[in-house]
Structure formats: C-alpha cells, structure tokens
C-alpha cells in the first residue's frame, strides 16, 4: 500500500472527470431536476379531474347539483354531452375521466319524496384516480342530498337531520401531507445509486475497452490502490450531491429535518461505499461499458427507485417482493433517511439498519477487491 501511488491514480481520475465538464454538470443537475419535477409537477393529490356531464333532466335541481361539481377544484367540467354515444366517445378517447349522468325524472322524483339516483360512469383504467375521483363525487352527492333533506325538514317544520358521526383526522410526521417530505429522502438515495453505481460501473470497463488497462497493468500499482484511487473521486462527488439534495430539500422545499447532520453524512458515506463497490465489481466483471451500465441499472437504480417510496408504498407489494426488498442495501439506507428527515427517532431504534449496511460494505469491498486481477486475460 503506497499513499503516493493511490494519490497518483486519484489525480489521474480527477483530471479525467474534470475534462468531461458536461458529464459533471449533468451529475449535479440530475438531483436538481428531480427535486424540481417532484416538487412542482408530480402530485399524487388527484385534482382537476376532467368531467363530462350528461344532464337529461335539465331542471333547476339538476343544475344545482352540477353547480356543486363545478365549485370544487377536484373536477373540471370539460364537456356537456348531448346524447349517450357522445358520453361513450368522451370516455373512450380519455377526454373525460368521469361522466355524470342525471336521469330524466331526477327533479320529479326528488319532489315526490323518496330516493333518486345519479349515475357516475368512470374510466377505471386508471384505478387509483378513478377511486379517488369516485370518493369526491360521492362526497358532493352526499352533501347535496343532505342539503335537500335539510330543506325538506325545514319545509315541514321538523328538526333537520344531523350527520351523526364526525371523523377527525390528525396526521403525524408529515402534517400537511406534503409528498415532498417523502420524496427528498428518496431523491437522495436515488442520486447516490446513480452516482455510485452507474458512474463507477464505467471506470474499469472503460480502461479495458480503450486498451489503457494494459498501461495500468504495467505500472507497479497494486489492485487495492487502483480501487481506492478510482473510487475516492466518485465518493466525493456522491457526498457533495447528497449535501446539495439535503440542503435544497430542507431550505427550499421546507422538508423537516429532525435528526442530526453527522448521522446523515455517516449513513450516506456507508451506503456510498456499498454502491461504489458494487459498481466497481460490475465494472471489473463485465469489461464492457454497455454491459456494466445495464447491470448497474438492474442492481442498484431500479431497486432504489422502487423502494424509495417515490410512488409505490412497500407495504402494499406482494410478500415475495417485500422479502426481496429486505436483501437490498437501499432499503436500509432509505429507512435511516426517513427517520433522520421525518421522525428524528433515537439512533438505537434503527441501529440494526446501520449494522446491515456495515456488513454489506465489508462483503462488497471484499468481492470487488478479489475480482480484480492484474492480468490481461
């Protein structure tokens, strides 16, 4: 082990990285773009659902009901249908997600007393939006129905019926239900996976492909020295990307930060060592940049993307998939991040996650070191 030789490799790697300004810029732009898109564009709160109305009654009562649909931000009335085929076409083309059909005798039935009904035709191919939209529509119709009842009771001089139950919700950890608080830890982990595994998956494969490996082999440098020298620059890039995401998330997007910064950087460094070694190992094994990057995609990026809770909650996945997630280091890192950002629970509650990451780090560093041989074939 010679520090001088490690330094030489490191310097070479740094020069190589800094010459490729575009790659470097993109690496720092990716977290910004991700935060920007997830912060402003993506919204799981379903709003402005395109709505089509087919009012076959055309009475004052039906208009009142439609006004209630118009008044909420959950629906945008985009079309007034003239006939039934018109409704079908709206749903088929996807121009409207829901069609509300008011029957001919709507007003008459209501005046005579007793029940009447309104139909909601849903494009349920998007099942999530459809069921949330259906919930909103049911709420609007229920509110309209109880308004009608109150009017009716007042007319008869009776006491108005009261809604007998009131559900009071209190949310913890993420009080405003801002999805951003969930996304920032995910983006941090995702960026780590991209920088860590993707970039390093190319480093050794590149030397093989360009033929410069031969030159490297002929120098007195030791395998472990190459490994350290090659990985340190990416480690530093990864850590600064993490800091960028975390600061931006907390300062700009107002994500809570309830844990401690040393804990954040400590666990990030640990996770980074895991993914860097993984990328390096693939690079050594694959010897082609295309194959190595594809391996890295499947092994690190995808699991991190799926487990970061960006979109899909883990506890809703089938048990087999949930079990697979337990094998992946990303899962432990994300649990730690969630705790640091949102809960600020004491370290002792997630010490197990730390231990798991340490074990992974040891195993992967050993694997990567053993896989590399200073031989041409």
């Amino acid at each position: 082990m010679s520090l001088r030789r490690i330094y030489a490799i490191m310097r070479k790697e740094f020069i190589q990285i800094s010459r490729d300004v575009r790659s470097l810029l993109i690496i720092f732009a990716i977290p910004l773009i991700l935060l920007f898109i997830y912060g402003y564009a993506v919204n799981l709160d379903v709003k402005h659902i395109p709505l089509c109305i087919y009012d076959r009654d055309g009475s004052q009562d039906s208009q009142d009901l439609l006004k209630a649909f118009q008044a909420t931000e959950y629906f945008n009335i985009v079309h007034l249908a003239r006939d039934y085929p018109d409704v079908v076409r709206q749903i088929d083309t996807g121009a409207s997600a829901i069609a509300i059909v008011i029957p001919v005798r709507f007003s008459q039935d209501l005046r005579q007393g007793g029940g009447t009904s309104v139909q909601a035709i849903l494009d349920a191919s998007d099942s999530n939006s459809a069921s949330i939209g259906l919930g909103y529509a049911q709420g609007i119709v229920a509110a309209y129905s109880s308004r009608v009842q109150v009017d009716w009771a007042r007319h008869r001089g009776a006491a108005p019926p009261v809604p007998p139950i009131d559900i009071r919700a209190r949310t913890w950890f993420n009080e405003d239900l801002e999805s951003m608080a969930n996304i920032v830890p995910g983006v941090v982990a995702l960026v780590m996976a991209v920088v860590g595994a993707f970039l390093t998956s190319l480093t050794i494969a590149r030397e093989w492909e360009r033929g410069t490996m031969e030159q490297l082999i002929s120098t007195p440098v030791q395998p472990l020295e190459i490994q350290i020298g090659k990985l340190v620059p990416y480690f530093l890039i990864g850590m600064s990307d993490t800091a960028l995401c975390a600061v931006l998330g907390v300062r700009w997007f107002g994500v809570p930060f309830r844990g401690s910064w040393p804990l954040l950087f400590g666990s990030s460094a640990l996770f980074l060592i895991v993914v860097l070694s993984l990328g390096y190992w693939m690079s050594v094994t694959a010897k082609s940049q295309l194959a190595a990057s594809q391996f890295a995609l499947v092994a690190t990026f995808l699991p991190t993307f799926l487990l970061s809770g960006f979109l899909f909650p883990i506890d809703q996945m089938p048990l087999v998939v949930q079990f697979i997630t337990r094998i992946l280091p990303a899962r432990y890192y994300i649990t730690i991040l969630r705790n640091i950002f949102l809960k600020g629970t004491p370290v002792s509650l997630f010490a197990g996650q730390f231990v798991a990451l340490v074990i992974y780090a040891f195993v992967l560093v050993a694997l990567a070191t053993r896989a590399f041989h200073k031989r041409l074939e």
Partner: protein
Amino acid sequence: MKFLQALGRIRHMLIKEFLQTFRDPHTRFVLIAPPVIQMMVFGYAATLEVKHVQFAVMDHDNTQESREFISRLSASRYFDLQLHAQRKEELRAGIDRGDFLLGIEIDSGFAQDLRGPKGAQVQVIVDSTNSNTALVGLGYVTQIGQAFAQTYQQDRIRRTDPQLMGVIPHVELIERPWFNEGFDSRWYFVPGVIGNLMLVMVMNLTAFAVVREREIGTLEQIMVTPIRRWEFILGKTLPFFLIGVFDAGLISLVGTFWFGVPFRGSVVVLAGSTMVFLLSSLGVGLFISTISANQQQAMVSAFFFIMPATTLSGFGTPISSMPPFFQKLTYLDPLRYFMIVLRSVYLKGVGFDVLWPQIAAMAVFAFVLLSISILRFHKSLE
C-alpha cells in the same frame, strides 16, 4: 443499381452489428434478462392500491355501537386490526415504531353522542410519512364511518317513525366503472411498465451505439469504407429496432399471461404503434449518441432524458393533476403518447380511429429526431 449497392453495404453493417452484439455473453444476457426481470419486479411493485393497512384502536366507550364501528373497519379489506390499546401512549409508541399506520381513538360517550343532537366524534391519528397511503387510508375511514352512520340513522328512523322512510328525499350515486371493474391497480400499471422499459432499453442501446465506435477508435475504420452516413445510421439502428420489437413482444406476453391484464384491442394496432414508438426512442438515443464524445457522456445524457420523460409521461401520476406549465411540457415527451396508446389498446380496446393523433405525434418525433441525427453525423473525425 446504386440502391442494390447501398443495400449490400447495409447488410454488411448489419452482420457486423449482430456479431458484435451477440458475441459478448454479458451483452447477450443484457438484451433478454433485464427487460423480463424488470417487467416482473415492476409489475408486482407498481401499485398504488391501499389494502390491509395495519391499525390500532383505543376504545374507551366499549359499547355495542363502538364495537360495531371497529368491526366494520377490520372486516373491510382495507384495514387489519393489530392492537387494542388501553392508553394513548400505546398508540403513539406504535406509530413511532411503525407497527401500524393508523390509530383510532373512541372516547367514552360515543354511543350516547350518536343519538344526541351534536353527533359523535372519532379521532384518527395517521402516520403520513407516505402521503398517498395516508390520504387514501383516511378516505376509507371516512367512507366506512359515513356508511356506518347512515345505516345507524336509517335503523333509528325505521324504528321510531317508519312512515318517514318512504318520503324523506335522498340522492345516491351509482357507480359504473368501465374497463377495470375491480379497480385493479395492476391493470393500469403493467401496460405502462411496457412503455417505460421499451424507452429505457432501446434508448440506452442506441445512445451507446455510435459513441462506442468513436471511443474505442473503430469509427475511423468505418469512415474509410465507402458506406454513406444514412446507410451507417440505418445499419446501426436496425438491429436495436429488431431487438426492441422482440423484447416488446416478450414483455407484452408476460403482461398478458403472467399478470393477467386483459388485452381487448387488436394486436395490429399495438404492434404498429409500438414500432412507431421504438423509432422515436431510437431517434432520441441516436441524437444523444451523435452529441456525446464518450460512453459516459452518452449514459448520463440518456439518464438526464429518461428521468423527466418517465415522470412526465403520466405513468405514475395523471397528467391532468399537473400544473399547466408541466402539462404543456409533457407534449414534448414521446412516452406520453405511447402510454395513452398502451392503456387504451389493452383496457379500452379502441383502434386507430381513436388513437391516430397519438401515433401521428410519435411519428413526427421519430422523423425529426432521426433526420437531425443523420444530418449531425459527419463522416469526419472531428
């Protein structure tokens, strides 16, 4: 004659590309396994359904009414009762540890208040770390609570004043879900996964294609051959197009036969639009390849495109809920059109008469990007 010569040159190029691609066992593996693995994992993981949410309850009323309310919750497929807590601290600690997501507090006097003029109250505490689950879960509690209240009220009216039942006016909403009667989330996401995988794979492969020759120095050798640049580009991309078509077929079969997503449209419509989409993905990849100096640049640039392209395509969240600026931005995303085509063909079974605008948009993308790439690619070393 000239045309035949061109065909001959393209044929040689094709043979070279196929040999190069299939000689490396790692690359061979990369072409088949990742799409199928990803299809399986994504197909299982991609769901926004909220079911079997663990919850705890602290029932200080302990009457027939409160127990009825709780059993309505635990009997539904959305909630699983995990704990009967005695004190508030137990609820708090359990949510802290992540043992359950919801805590329900029923104070004493619940049953009395149900009959009183003010109505009864139920407190729900929810761990909203995952805001979608929290939002949907709360929605279910409210729905179940309302249904419970309604039955309770009707029962009371029926007992106290049976004549009132027939005359009291009320409006109800009848739901008619089309295309996905069981609200199965997988039916929606699996076709979407096909689009994502096709884009990522074909684009990545082509992004590496030209720049790889440049990086390892073999582009120089090709330049001295009589091949023309459009012939070179065609020879480069055709193999990836064919691989893309093959993989698309493979994962579509997985979608239909493994995940059981109904296929209601026509295979011709799906195949035709998939090919147009593959061309536009090739165009993006090729464009990246012509503007990159080495494979690392190509990879990060491809990534730079993929991340926004998949999120803005409407794959995970509906485009109609995005802010207007981003809604306009989605028109620049070829995947947006393909998402609509895939889901419509699979679930709605519509044909060209409805989908032609989407297919036309993808064709425009393919044409523009491929033309730019051919024009940008020069047979010179600089």
